[in-house]
């Protein structure tokens, strides 16, 4: 059992999301950065989709009422009973210990995973919070959370090597996008603007969508409105003002604005971690290329899981100009 002593910003329980209810208008929700969240779970020996805590910018202070093993994913200062401990590493906490998670130095979302996961009653098959519809609520100081049962021995002291930790400090990133499906609602110039300009994340961004500012994207004579059609996370809607909105994990399931493209699954965690004021560029990729990227990301995450279980080793190798991490089983 853990108790939340202070909750300075948005703190929610998330897992890999809700499946099968989109036809009833229920968003998938789930962790914004699947890469960090899954690694946090692997560090404590959980499966990747176990429920964990997601915090925005600033972490909470937590008291342990029983022994537990925890890990933090994020570029953040962590203290256990006032003593700094490393993030991206699993630690043992005993009854009465106080965990303080500070402010992220880079990135937007951080994760706190516990061995056994956070115990919760799944609503519509998931523990992911979607407060708007009464599916969970943001956590507040005083809340008590139960942890799932887990054998703790042997789960602490797992550490993700520094070179494998994601770096979310860049002020400008490029993400892959599959164009369409509403391309006929844009002029050729509009599409080329979208693919050549940098767009700035505005403060009016949240788990539902990131509103971007930048050069206006021109619609064709068909206009910005479409006959309402399905939406998925990653969809880039362009309303009449020509400023794109990228839908994120709490995206509504259908929408009436034309979609110029969809950010590929393999890159969405990088976009999720982009702070307001930072910029994103969109690079066109094919569906086949997007799938290859996703399979590569999955392979890396699986290798990281095996590495943390001690079943694999990682080496840094120079391949041509690029330095790469090579996993050896």
């Amino acid at each position, binding site marked *: 059992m853990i108790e939340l002593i202070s909750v300075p910003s948005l703190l929610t329980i998330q897992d890999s999301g809700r499946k*099968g209810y*989109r*036809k009833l208008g229920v968003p998938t929700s789930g962790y914004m950065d699947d890469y960090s969240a899954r690694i946090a779970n692997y560090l404590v020996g959980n499966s990747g989709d176990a429920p964990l805590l997601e915090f925005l910018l600033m972490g909470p202070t937590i008291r342990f009422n029983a022994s537990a093993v925890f890990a933090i994913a994020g570029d953040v200062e962590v203290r256990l009973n006032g003593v700094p401990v490393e993030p991206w590493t699993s630690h043992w906490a005993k009854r009465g210990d106080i965990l303080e998670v500070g402010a992220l130095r880079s990135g937007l979302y951080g994760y706190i995973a516990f061995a056994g996961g956070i115990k919760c009653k799944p609503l519509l098959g998931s523990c992911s919070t979607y407060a708007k519809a009464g599916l969970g609520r943001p956590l507040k100081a005083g809340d008590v959370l139960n942890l799932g049962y887990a054998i703790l021995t042997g789960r602490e002291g797992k550490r993700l090597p520094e070179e494998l930790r994601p770096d979310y400090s860049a002020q400008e990133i490029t993400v892959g996008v599959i164009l369409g499906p509403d391309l006929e609602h844009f002029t050729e110039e509009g599409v080329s603007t979208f693919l050549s300009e940098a767009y700035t994340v505005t403060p009016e961004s949240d788990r539902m969508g990131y509103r971007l500012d930048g050069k206006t994207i021109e619609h064709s004579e068909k206009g910005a409105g479409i006959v309402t059609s399905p939406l998925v996370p990653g969809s880039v809607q362009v309303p009449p003002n020509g400023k794109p909105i990228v839908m994120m994990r709490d995206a509504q399931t259908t929408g009436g604005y034309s979609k110029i493209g969809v950010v590929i699954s393999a890159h969405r965690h990088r976009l999720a971690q982009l702070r307001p004021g930072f910029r994103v560029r969109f690079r066109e990729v094919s569906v086949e290329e997007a799938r290859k990227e*996703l399979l590569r990301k999955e392979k890396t995450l699986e290798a990281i899981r095996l590495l943390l279980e001690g079943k694999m080793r990682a080496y840094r190798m120079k391949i041509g100009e690029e330095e790469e991490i090579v996993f050896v089983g």
Partner: protein
Amino acid sequence: MNFKPLGDSALLISFGEVIDEEVNDRVHALTKAIAGAGFEWLVEVVPAYSSLAVIYDPKLIDFEGVKRAVEGLDVRAERVGGRLVEIPVLYGGEYGPDLEFVAQYNGLTPEEVIEIHSKPIYRVYFLGFLPGFAYLGGMDERVATPRLEKPRLKVPAGSVGIAGKQTGIYPLESPGGWRIIGRTPLRLFNPPREPPTLLRPGDRVKFVPIDKEEFDELYRAEWGNEND
């Protein structure tokens, strides 16, 4: 039928950009066929007016594979048989603050608006926007009214409204710009219930005017255990 990628894990099938009952029948027939085919790579199917999204697991199949699988299905054109759901509505007063305006705007009495609004059998084209929100078709244009100039910050769950030529029910408390003419005591979205929504794609809806006494009774039955 037109196939396009909707990102790398969804296929969008479109029958053109139209709002039409027959086209929507085809959308639902295909939705049913895909959902029932037992594809192991299928995550879910999301229907809309004239298009549907087939959400798949790209770890198990690629875009071309999904396209081939869908093209290979034998889809019988059929009228989608939804249920007829009666929705009791208390029109006007504090629960329908815009009823007078809708009447005035259309040169009708409030009683005429109620009669016109509760007469048709509406069709649930699909659910979207909010959990349990039904896109209804079939409103009589004699009660069509533009949206509020300034949206309300809080519209209570169950509010029945008109926006242009559309009518609908707010399943949850939310901000909104529709003209609210009444409220239903029924819960349109109730997470522990399975399925969690009162309405489902393809259903038919009939609004039934009720009085305050009936409203209160039904409201207690639906929401009474809210805080247990």
